[in-house]
C-alpha cells in the first residue's frame, strides 16, 4: 500500500499493511527542515520544500499543514492585528470584535488575502509533487474557535451569559466564510480536514453550552466540507465520551475522531472511545506531545510509543497520531524514535 491507500483503508475501517502514521508533525518538521519556521508555516514553495524533506526522512502517511492558517492567516483576514515572528507561531496582537455591531463588518470581509493565496499555493505545489501517493491534511478550526480569536476567549465565554446573541450572530456570519476557505483548500488539494474544536472542548465549556451554541454551526461546516469532498476529522480534548460530546460529533458527516489531551490528566484512552463508537468511525491515537516526546529521552519516547501501539493493536480503523500541536523544540532524535517504533510495529488486524 502507498500512504494514500493506507490512510484510506484505515478511514474506511479496512485492513492495513502496517500502522498508518499520521502525527501532528507540522511544527517540528518546519523547524527541522524549513528555511525558516515562519516561511515553512506560511509560504508556498518554502512550505512545500519543508514538508517534502520531512516526508522523505520520516515516511509519514500524510502531509499536515495549517498551523499558520489557523493561527494567523484566518484571524488576520478577519481583521485581527497579527504578528508573524520568525521562530514561533503567529501571535494575535489585537482582537477585532468589540461589540455586536462589529459582526456585520466581519460578514463582508474578503478571506483571500495575499497571505491566504500564498498558503493555498503551497498546498497546490504539494499536491502536484505528491502525485496522489500521499494525502494532504490541513488543520482547520470551527466557527466558535475562530470567534474566540476575534473576540477574545474570556469575552466570548462571558458573552454566553451576558451577550448570547453576539455569540450566535458571530458564528452565523463565520459559517459561510469558514466553508468558503475550506472549499478553496479542497480545490487546491487538501484531502483531510483536521477540524480543531479547541475552545469548545469539555475541559473549557459545558456540554450544555456546546449543544446550545456550538453544535449547529459546527455541524453546518463539517457536513458541507464533507459534501465538497474532504474527509473531516474533528479534534477535541477532554472527556468527550463521558460528557456525551461524542454523541453530537457522531451525528455529523465525519470520517474520524482525533481525541486530544490538553493535559496529562485528561487523556482519553482510545479503547474507551472505541467501545463507544464501535466500527462506525476511525480513531486517531493521542500520544502526549508534551511528555517524553518533548522532555524525555529517545528510549522513553520509544517505550511510550510502544505502549500506545500495544494498547491499539489490531483495532480496526486506527491511525497513530499525537494528541495535539507538537512543539518545534521537540528534539529530532525523539521524533525519530517515535517514528521508528510506528514504522516497525508488527500490526495485526482484529
Amino acid at each position, binding site marked *: 500500500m502507498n500512504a494514500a491507500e493506507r490512510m484510506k483503508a484505515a478511514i474506511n475501517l479496512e485492513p492495513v499493511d502496517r500502522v498508518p502514521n499520521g502525527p501532528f508533525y507540522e*511544527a517540528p518538521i518546519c523547524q527541522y527542515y524549513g528555511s525558516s519556521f515562519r516561511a515553512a508555516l506560511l509560504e508556498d514553495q518554502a512550505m512545500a520544500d519543508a514538508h517534502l524533506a520531512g516526508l522523505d526522512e520520516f515516511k509519514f502517511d500524510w502531509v499536515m499543514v495549517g498551523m499558520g492558517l489557523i493561527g494567523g492567516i484566518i484571524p488576520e483576514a478577519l481583521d485581527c492585528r497579527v504578528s508573524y*515572528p520568525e521562530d*514561533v*507561531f503567529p*501571535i*494575535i*496582537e489585537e482582537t477585532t470584535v468589540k461589540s455586536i455591531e462589529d459582526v456585520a463588518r466581519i460578514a463582508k470581509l474578503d478571506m483571500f488575502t495575499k497571505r491566504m493565496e500564498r498558503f493555498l499555493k503551497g498546498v497546490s505545489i504539494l499536491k502536484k509533487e505528491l502525485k496522489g501517493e500521499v494525502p494532504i491534511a490541513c488543520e482547520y478550526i470551527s466557527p466558535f474557535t475562530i470567534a474566540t480569536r476575534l473576540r477574545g*476567549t*474570556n469575552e466570548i*465565554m*462571558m458573552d*454566553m*451569559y*451576558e451577550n448570547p446573541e453576539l455569540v450566535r450572530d458571530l458564528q452565523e456570519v463565520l459559517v459561510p466564510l469558514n466553508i468558503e476557505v475550506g472549499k478553496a483548500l479542497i480545490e487546491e488539494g487538501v484531502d483531510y480536514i483536521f477540524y480543531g474544536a479547541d475552545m469548545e472542548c*469539555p475541559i*473549557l*465549556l*459545558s456540554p450544555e*453550552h456546546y449543544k446550545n451554541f456550538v453544535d449547529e454551526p459546527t455541524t453546518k461546516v463539517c457536513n458541507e466540507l464533507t459534501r465538497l469532498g474532504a474527509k473531516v476529522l474533528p479534534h477535541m480534548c477532554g*472527556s468527550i465520551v463521558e460528557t456525551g460530546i461524542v454523541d453530537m460529533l457522531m451525528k455529523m458527516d465525519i470520517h474520524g475522531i482525533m481525541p486530544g489531551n*490538553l*493535559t*496529562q*490528566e485528561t487523556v482519553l484512552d482510545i479503547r474507551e472511545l472505541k467501545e463507544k463508537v464501535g466500527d462506525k468511525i476511525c480513531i486517531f491515537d493521542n500520544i502526549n*506531545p*508534551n*511528555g517524553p516526546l*518533548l*522532555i524525555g529521552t529517545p528510549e522513553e519516547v520509544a517505550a511510550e510509543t510502544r505502549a500506545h501501539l500495544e494498547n491499539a493493536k489490531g483495532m480496526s480503523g486506527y491511525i497513530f497520531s499525537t494528541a495535539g*500541536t*507538537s*512543539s*518545534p*523544540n521537540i528534539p529530532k532524535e525523539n521524533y525519530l524514535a517515535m517514528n521508528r517504533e510506528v514504522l516497525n510495529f508488527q500490526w495485526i488486524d482484529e
Partner: protein
Amino acid sequence: MAVKDIAEAVVVMDRVKVVELVKTEIAAGTEIDEILNAGLIDAMDIVGQKFSDGSLFVPEMLMAAKAMKAGLEELKPHLSAGAAVSRGTVIIGTVKGDLHDIGKNLVALMMEGAGMDVVDLGVDIDAEKFVKAAIEHNAGVVALSALLTTTMPTMETIVAAIKEAGIAVKTIIGGAPVTAAFADQIGADGFSADAPGAVELTRKLLAA
C-alpha cells in the same frame, strides 16, 4: 446565615444578589472580615473545586468571579489593615511569545479571592519584566503561565533570571501543556495543573 447566602450567590453567579447581600450585611454590622472570608473568599474556593471536579466550566468561573468582585467593591471602603491583612504578593503573567490568558486570568482571580495581592503583568512577558515586578512589589511568588508548547522553554529562562537576580521569591508554573516533571527540570518551586491547586500551592509558599 446570611454570609453563607453571599457565598451561595457567588457560586450561582448572581452578581446583583451578591451586592445586595453584602450591603445588607454591612448595614447589619456583620464583621467585615467575616463577610470577606466566609462570603467571598470561601465562595471562590467552592467555585474552584467545582471547576476541578467538572461541574462548572470556564464561563461559570468567570461569571462567579465577576460576582465576587462586585461584592468586594462594596467591601473595599470598609476594609482596614486590621480587617483584611494581605496574604502576600504574587506576580503573574503569561510568558513571552504566548498571548493566552484564560488560565492566568482564572488563577489571578482566585488568588485575589483568596486575599492575595496580585500584580497581573498580562501576556507576552519577558524575564526582565518579571524580575523587575518581583523586586518592585516585594513579591513572595512569581506565577508563570503558558499554553503553547513552544513557549514553555521561556519559562526556564525566566526561572533562571529570577534565581540570578538573587531575590527571595518562589516560582510556580502552570498551563495546559506544563507538567510537574517539566517544573522540576527547570528548577521551578512548584507546579499546578489547575487554578485551585495554584492558589493552594501559593498559600503554602507564601506562608513558608
